[in-house]
């Protein structure tokens, strides 16, 4: 049995979570989370850590070039963050664009999308 102490990174409350693994590295118990997202985070973190990526891409508007904030709609594997940034850097959009619009579908992983986080008319 091993225990791992984690800090949940899903929200700024930063709950401290303890995960106990049995000898076959399977999760025995998870304690210390305040909400279920924390539990999911902890389970993922000890097996395959994922992160939400946020960045910006240029958007052409009537008033010229602006920066559109973007994010992935789900966590992507932590080790693919830099690969993901290459795709982000090659992305540009034109207004109108709205919060939640899918800019790149199947981003890094099938079913994960890169979405817009602001409206530009």
């Amino acid at each position, binding site marked *: 049995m091993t225990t791992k102490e984690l*800090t949940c*990174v*899903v*929200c700024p*409350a930063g709950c401290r979570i303890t995960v106990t693994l049995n000898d076959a590295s399977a999760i025995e118990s998870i304690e210390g989370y305040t909400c279920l997202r924390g539990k999911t985070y902890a389970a993922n973190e000890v097996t395959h850590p994922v992160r939400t990526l946020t*960045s910006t891409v240029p958007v052409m508007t009537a008033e010229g070039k602006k920066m559109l*904030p973007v994010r992935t709609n789900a966590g992507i594997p*932590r080790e693919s*963050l830099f690969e993901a940034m290459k795709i982000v850097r090659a992305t540009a959009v034109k207004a109108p664009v709205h919060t939640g619009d899918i800019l790149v579908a199947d981003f890094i992983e099938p079913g994960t999308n890169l979405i817009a*986080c602001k409206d530009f008319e």
Partner: protein
Amino acid sequence: MAAHKLIIIGGGPAGLSAAVAAVDAGLAPEDILVLERDSEPGGILNQCIHAGFGLHRFGEELTGPEYSGRYIAMARERGIPILCNAMVLSLTDDRRVTFVSPETGYTTVDAEAVILAMGCRERTRGALGIPGTRPSGVYTAGCAQRYINIEGYMPGRRVVILGSGDIGLIMARRMTLEGAKVLAVCEIMPYSGGLARNIVQCLDDFGIPLKLSHTVVQIHGRDRVEGVTVAAVDEANGRRPIPGTEEYFACDTLLLSVGLIPENELTRGAGITLDRMTNGASVNQFRETSAPGIYACGNVLHVHDLVDYVSEEADTAGRAAAARILGNAAPVVRSVKLTTGHGIRYTVPERIDLAEEPEDVRIFFRVTDVFKKVRLTVETAAGAILVNKAKSAAAPGEMESLTIPAAKLREVLASGTEEILVKLTETGGDKS
């Protein structure tokens, strides 16, 4: 002279939440005016593009622009007037607000209630003491955040960050993902002022070293930063640099993330009492300041690390302002002062104004140091415990809160207590 019932200064998350709450409490939207000096509402969150906002409010992990976008939409749905490019110049304690805007020119209005929601700005003072040249390439972390996320250009390629505040940590990740090399984050204190989650996902994820008890002792370079010298500091000797520990980092950029200070020039101008610890107004549980009818909420009151709490606090202020205007606020029977005991740096509110039928009051506070295994207690001067909780860890970077239940406040009212104490007790485990 125009009359407005409720003037809200600042259209960030605090100002917008307060406006929405005031309408939901029965105030007519046209009786409200939100004044925002920027060209769009949303406040500082417009440049905070990282995720983690709104989990408590919306049950979703949003970015800053999405979070403020929700509030902008709520304000629009309710038809609340927001005047952008409107800079408030002065305020008096009898609620006379003077502002300028291209649409209205120089304008003075008298309001029945005013909500201060001007937010905070970055401290730069920590940098002024650093010897060396004054080349370009030294920015506050928030300024770099604006350059990258709003203007769309990178301020540098090889970066050292002084101060481990959240914005600095967030920028360490952002610049790394954008291809810059972040060499180190130096923190003069033996602990970080940032959230644990940001240390994990902004530094640890990328192998960026956090050098605790270290500071920048010299900036090198003539026109542009060429490097900085970092040294360990002596905790026992007034955090003075320890000779022989100097390390040189060749870099083109130094970011400063040395804290935020509430923006209270207007508050001071109105002669409102400020709290020495928070640098914000001293308030009661409705966030009413020492000037009747003037409320404060959000980062102008005290620096929050969770915008969800900003919205909650703003709701309280918005509802209270509406109640004052609509004349349905419960009369105050007696005031009780909150004091800080061992391990507590400040509390908000600092005063509870009790009505005949008290309601639950949530107290926000910060601890003075990093502690392990503590009990946080709110008690009367006579030692009667009103609420307490045990925590496995507490740190100054993370705001704590405790809610005093209405039933306990009724006891306080009956007992005649004039002071309530918030304190921390170490319950074993080493202080680290």
